[in-house]
């Protein structure tokens, strides 16, 4: 093992931040709280998700290769995505809490080759952004949603990536700096209602060992090196609860916070990578939904004819490069520049302006992803029942019946789904406007200046809302069929 993290003098001291008293503490709820604080509490959930991941890999590699008939594609692209977005909305980063990919860590740590630190130039979110771009590009190019076999290999890739990085480095760089799923969860957990915090700040002030981050003899400290008394954000928190288990004073709480507390308070780090990540994820949401509707085929056809791009992968690379990288960059730099010009305050650095208003995109992006992933979950949530019936029958087991009931599919009535999508997107937009206004109204600035600053961002959010609703208004197309002659 390499150097263990430790608290140093340059980190904020415990107690320097005002903390409202902790009310409800999930870690002290009957039964659930005890389970979560139990040394092996996380393992229970990880073993469950590990079994699910094992099923995804096994069925994906060996089962039927029709996507709606295979648990790999149904679990990964319908249930995982639905679960993640609902968990983030209602509680927090529950997937990272039960993440199966980190389960082989113990083995990896024993194999640890060098135990070095993650390279300094990569200690940011740029690698995650690259990973997100790659996974969304592969998703469209290779039709991951339609291939149980490839879906299984994606799961294998996650296991391998986590294992190798854990073996090579002392900390947990995969979670904090690499994992695209983690990056998605971290960003939207900033809007989640639960957060880790100390029960009593004074206890942390007198704590000598700082076990929550340094670890105790029996329990490791925070894998992503967050120090509980200074945690102001769910960013980088995997909800692993190692801090709670390591704390000798039982002083760590998982408690609700005021709605949108993190997005509206001026705590967002002034970093280009963070700004770009939240803005780009919103555009990823649009482009991912855009890939499901018929106009995307018109774009493909145009690109093939006008640009001579015969390769599907190249066309998607160009399309996603524009939608997911160039447009977010334009929004970030253009928005900051326009804010500065309109507010007539040239002393404000562009990074400061961009990081001030970027959190609004968390709300907007959340609405778009909720509308998209919620659609798939609502329309096909029950498909897992006939899929499991079919899986068991294929293995000679009739535990769930002698014939798959393929009529089972919808989780919610059809007529509810579009209104719910519209509500999700519009809610995201209005919450984003609220976040913008709260961040614009701050001491030392008049409402007029604040309004001029937020105008460019509000207009971008308006355009994103209209574009998203237009996409969700279109029927999901029969992908892989209408682009004949283009592929």
């Amino acid at each position, binding site marked *: 093992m390499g150097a263990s993290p430790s608290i140093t003098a340059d980190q904020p001291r415990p107690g320097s931040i005002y903390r409202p008293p902790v009310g409800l503490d999930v870690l002290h709820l009957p039964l659930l709280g005890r389970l979560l604080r139990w040394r092996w509490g996380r393992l229970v959930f990880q073993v469950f998700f590990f079994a699910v991941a094992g099923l995804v890999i096994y069925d994906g590699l060996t089962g039927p290769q029709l996507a709606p008939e295979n648990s790999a594609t149904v679990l990964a692209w319908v249930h995982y995505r639905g679960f993640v977005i609902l968990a983030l909305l209602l509680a927090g980063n529950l997937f990272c809490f039960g993440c199966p990919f980190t389960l082989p860590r113990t083995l990896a740590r024993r194999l640890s*080759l060098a135990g070095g630190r993650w390279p300094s130039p990569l200690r940011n979110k740029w690698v995650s952004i690259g990973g997100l771009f790659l996974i969304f590009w592969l998703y469209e190019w290779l039709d991951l949603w*339609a291939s149980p076999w490839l879906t299984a290999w994606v799961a294998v890739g996650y296991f391998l990536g986590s294992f190798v990085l854990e073996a090579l480095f002392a900390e947990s760089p995969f979670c904090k700096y690499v994992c695209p799923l983690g990056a998605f969860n971290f960003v939207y957990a900033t809007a989640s209602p639960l957060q880790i915090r100390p029960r009593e700040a004074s206890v942390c002030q007198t704590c000598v060992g700082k076990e929550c981050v340094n670890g105790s003899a029996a329990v490791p400290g925070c894998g992503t090196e967050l120090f509980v008394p200074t945690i102001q954000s769910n960013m980088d928190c995997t909800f692993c609860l190692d801090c709670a288990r390591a704390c000798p004073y039982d002083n760590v709480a998982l408690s609700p916070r005021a709605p949108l507390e993190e997005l509206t308070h001026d705590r967002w780090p002034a970093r280009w990578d963070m700004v770009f990540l939240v803005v780009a994820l919103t555009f990823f949401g649009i482009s991912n939904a855009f890939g499901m509707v018929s106009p995307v085929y018109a774009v493909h056809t145009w690109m093939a004819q006008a640009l001579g791009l015969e390769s599907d992968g190249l066309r998607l690379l160009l399309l996603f490069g524009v939608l997911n990288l160039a447009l977010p960059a334009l929004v970030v730099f253009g928005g900051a520049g326009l804010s500065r010009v309109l507010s007539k305050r040239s002393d404000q650095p562009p990074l400061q302006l961009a990081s001030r208003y970027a959190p609004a995109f968390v709300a907007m992006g959340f609405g778009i992803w909720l509308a998209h992933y919620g659609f798939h979950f609502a329309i096909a949530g029950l498909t897992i029942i006939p899929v499991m019936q079919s899986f068991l029958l294929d293995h000679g087991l009739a535990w769930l019946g002698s014939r798959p009931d393929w009529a089972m599919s919808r989780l919610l009535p059809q007529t509810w789904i579009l209104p719910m999508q519209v509500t999700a997107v519009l809610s995201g937009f209005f919450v984003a406007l609220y976040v913008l206004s709260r961040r614009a109204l701050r001491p030392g600035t008049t409402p007029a200046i604040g309004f001029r600053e937020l105008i460019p961002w509000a207009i971008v959010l308006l355009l994103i809302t209209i574009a998203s609703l237009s996409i969700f208004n279109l029927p999901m197309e029969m992908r892989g069929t209408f682009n004949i002659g283009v592929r």
Partner: protein
Amino acid sequence: MTRRRLRSAICLIILGLMLSIPSSALGEGPGTGGRLIRLEDEPAGPYLLRVVSSPSPPRVGSLYLEVRVTEASSGREITDATVWTMATFVDGEAPPLVVEAVHAIAPIPTEYASHLPVSRSGVWQVTITVDGTPGHGETSLLLQILETSSISAYLSVGLPLAGLAALGLIFIFLQRSYAKSSPRSSDDV
């Protein structure tokens, strides 16, 4: 290199080699979004049919069917049959549709696919007929077709614009309140 590091390096190399082993279990090609299995191994004469529809839900103008034909006696997939799909409106009057299902537009190349541009919402009876060397087979299923969805422009454009306008009004109000309490301010909206 210590024994421990050597052992670790060997383990990682073995893992890498395992990943590089080529596999023949490739997927059967691109599929369609929102597919639903409607019939699974449904008897149709000498055949067993699997019928998959998309998108989900099927809407007016867009009903796509994929049909896999297997010989019931041998389980062999039949790829040289003639497959026709016919849609008849059950809930009222609408012209019936008869379309041949072909390999050319099937995401899985050994299957047959057809696009049925159903013209009305309601229940349609879809009949699939198969003619091949083993003989003639036919089966039917009922599908509920929905109207195309539509969001009013008032909702998708008007409401967000109204929200933005309301934000502007709130800031005008706040600025006026601020100006009253701080008369020396020269800022305006």
